[in-house]
């Protein structure tokens, strides 16, 4: 169930909101837990049993880790991590691995091998990381284990962040579960502007731009001109930001409506002047997770330069694979890891002081990011390299008819507005302005979000379901 689907907006949410308001405040976690399981079943069907099994294992592991009677805490931790990573590896990566084995076997003339074909449970990457965060935090004694199963289910399965993040580390949210003194209408009013903003970013901007990116990435042969390649890279760069940050805004807004504060996930990432800075602004919850649970345990930057560089590349290889089981994601991760190492080696990971250099670095960083996104969105490495080749070699400025056809007035305007929004000063963060801002600008922003952006997005969601037949279907 997508947040931008009619069934979520006008069936699920009204039912959950009414239930939440009718029930006593102390039942908040239970209401959310049940609603979240319903949400997951809706999108994933019988895979809810996988989620419940993971919940049971990790809940039990947490209790065991907290128990004074358990001597081998490390073993319990290993079992829990093994279970979580095992589930992720099997469901997400077994198909990819078996395909590689098959390819190698055929290349060696040994014939084909069995290819695993498992459907990917929705949100498995996210809830696996939540589980890992929990057991590690409990093992480290950062927080005691959660004694109430419903509360634990609320943490793992909270529907605002279940399928698309942000990744909420256990210690970031645990203290909020017991705080049920909130004014529910206050929460609702506080969260809705952010949700409306996120919906508009996704539906009005990202979905509008998507066909342009798709048409450009589908171009091949003589149709893949330099102009097509750059337009596609730019369109996808904008699309992925507005889509992903829009989802995060919706998640933060939804959680806020139910009295929870989730961590910010984006902070004007395209205003970065280095790749290092980009990763402090893009999908911040993922960066923090990798930092706390992988990078620092590997030694971080405290074991010499070589080890630091190795750790950085390792993190980004894992990060790439976390996004998807394909070589293009691996290359994307390696690309970013390599750039981070280069910035460290050259000392180019700091903020330039002079304006011309600042502009140059910002443009340069943007170009590097766009190249990375080409890998991210391409169906194969050969297509990615083809597109990048077209970007950096003179292959004409004409746009093929198929791409031209997508550039109607509305898409062109939205594309330009989205690009303009990215050029705003980095201090302008609309999401935080809506949530925490005071003063006239914040009020105007909130009003614009709830009175214009949200309703227009709602109209587009409803209208987007329009699928008429030319003739009546008898």
């Amino acid at each position, binding site marked *: *169930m997508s947040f931008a*689907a*009619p*069934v979520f*907006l*006008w*069936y699920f949410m009204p039912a959950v909101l009414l239930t939440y308001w009718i029930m006593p405040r102390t039942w908040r976690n239970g209401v959310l837990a049940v609603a979240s399981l319903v949400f997951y*079943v*809706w*999108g994933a069907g*019988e895979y809810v049993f996988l989620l419940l099994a993971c919940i049971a294992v990790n809940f039990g592991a947490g209790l065991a880790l907290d128990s004074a009677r358990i001597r081998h805490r490390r073993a319990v931790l290993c079992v829990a991590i093994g279970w979580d990573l095992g589930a992720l590896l099997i469901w997400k990566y077994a198909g990819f691995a078996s395909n590689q084995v098959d390819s190698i076997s055929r290349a060696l003339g040994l014939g084909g091998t069995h290819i695993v074909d498992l459907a*990917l449970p929705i*949100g498995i*990457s996210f809830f696996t990381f939540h589980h890992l965060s929990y057991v590690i935090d409990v093992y480290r004694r*950062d927080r005691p284990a959660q004694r109430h199963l419903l509360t634990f289910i609320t943490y793992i399965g909270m529907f605002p962040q279940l*399928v698309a*993040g942000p990744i909420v580390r256990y210690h970031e*949210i645990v*203290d*909020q579960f017991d705080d049920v003194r909130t004014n529910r209408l206050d929460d*609702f*009013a506080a969260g809705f*502007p952010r949700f409306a903003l996120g919906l508009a970013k996704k539906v009005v901007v990202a*979905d509008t731009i*998507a*066909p342009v*990116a*798709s048409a450009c990435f*589908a171009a091949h042969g003589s149709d893949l001109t330099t102009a097509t390649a750059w337009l596609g890279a730019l369109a996808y760069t904008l699309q992925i930001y507005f*889509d992903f940050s*829009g*989802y995060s805004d919706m998640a933060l807004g939804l959680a806020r409506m139910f009295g929870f*504060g*989730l*961590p910010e996930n984006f902070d004007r990432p395209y205003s970065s002047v280095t790749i290092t800075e980009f990763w402090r602004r893009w999908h911040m919850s993922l960066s923090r997770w990798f930092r*706390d649970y992988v990078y620092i345990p590997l030694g971080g930057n405290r074991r010499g330069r070589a080890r630091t560089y190795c750790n950085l590349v390792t993190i980004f290889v894992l990060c790439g694979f976390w*996004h*998807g089981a*394909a070589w*293009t994601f691996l290359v994307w991760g390696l690309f970013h890891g390599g750039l981070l190492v280069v910035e460290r080696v050259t000392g180019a990971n700091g903020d330039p002081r002079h304006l011309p250099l600042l502009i140059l670095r910002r443009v340069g960083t943007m170009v590097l990011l766009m190249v990375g996104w080409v890998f991210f969105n391409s169906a194969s490495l050969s297509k990615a390299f083809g597109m990048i080749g077209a970007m950096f070699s003179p292959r004409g400025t004409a746009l093929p008819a198929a791409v031209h*056809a997508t550039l109607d*007035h*509305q898409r062109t305007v939205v594309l330009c507005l989205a690009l303009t929004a990215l050029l705003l000063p980095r201090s302008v963060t609309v999401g935080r302005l809506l949530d925490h801002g*005071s003063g006239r600008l914040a009020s105007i922003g*909130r009003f614009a979000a*709830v009175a214009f952006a*949200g*309703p227009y997005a709602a*109209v587009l969601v*409803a*209208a*987007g379901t*329009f*699928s*008429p*037949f*030319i*003739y*009546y279907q*008898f």
Partner: protein
Amino acid sequence: MTTAHRRPSRPGRVRRRLRRPVVLLFAAVFFFAPLAARLTGQHAVQFENHALARFPSMTSWSFFSKFDTWSVDHLPLRQYAVRGDANLSQSVFGEVPQYGGNADIPKSGIGSKDGQRTQPASGDAQYTDVIEGKNGWLFFGGDAAGACKPRRPISQELALINQLGQAVTASGRQFIFTVAPDKTTMYPDKLPDSFYGKDCMLSAKKEFWQRLSRNPPVGYLDLRSALRLQQDADGVPIYRKSDTHWGPRGGVVFAKQLANRLQPGLWNGTIVTRHGSVTQRGDLSILDGRPTDDVMPNWTVRRPGVRLGYKIAPHPLAQPDTVVNQSSAGGAKLFPKKTLLLGDSFTDASRSDLLPLFKQVTILHNTSSVGYPDKLTQAFVDNDVIVLEVVERSPVGGGIALIGPKHLPSLIAALKAHPLH
């Protein structure tokens, strides 16, 4: 250890007091408007040319996906959202939105469904459902999409129609094949100067009409010339502005041409009168999201002395429907042979003019009837004359199902096995 994330501090009491009711009002309207509409008696309506989905069975996991369909169909106020969006887009951007073409990034929001890559669109999204022509004329986008990406070459399509025709005539029956021209063929001057697929569409249409005129299938009846002549004589367009079909006058032309082919003199005594005008909702305007009505001169056919065997002319549907008419002595003649009228929405639009020509006629849809192959075959066998009407985009796009490999051989075999004596 990172500090646990806290809820944001609350704003000042005065500002909160002012802000809260406004935001709450908008939020409440946002989430609860459809529910409120439903409770006040507003129901979802059929406006997409299909029946509303039924509530799904709760006994399988597919309940959830089917509920999504049901929930969309039964969402109150949705038709206003469609119309509002179309009008807003037209007034702000000068164009109507392309429905159904938006890509929904899968749920992870990061370009892949938690690792499953979505393939870029092949280019199909560029063909719009409706082509907006000059002076408010609307055309069906499928004319371009089908022509540019045909399932079978035009030459093969016409050869298969000829094969069917020859099988019918070899069995002793009469075969008549006619083509209702697309609006894009009748009014090329009203097409926009450019749109995606225009060149390949025009090229395919040119090839089609050239092949039809040089080497027509057996039994071919040309309607295009007669429609143009009538239009020139009347001085008004014969097709509807916001619909794919011809208006009442087109139905009369079709009926007259068919009558003259079936039997010389059959049309004699038929009285064609114009009285007033008729208002009809344009099907293209429905696709467009901005339903509008066309007003056209109303022409009707009356055949004195003919007693019709129906109160309401039956539609061409998936299963055959047979009507029997009677004529009194001295009245207009009825075509005496049992006739199968296989047509589509153009036959449907003309049925009030066509059906009174026959003593016994079976009307059947030329596409949906393949869902009942046995009844389709039997209809061929039971009748002495087979009239096949197709709209131009069908053969141009290579999409006539009944001449495909699944159905044509069995039709030919049945005709061979049941010749007319």
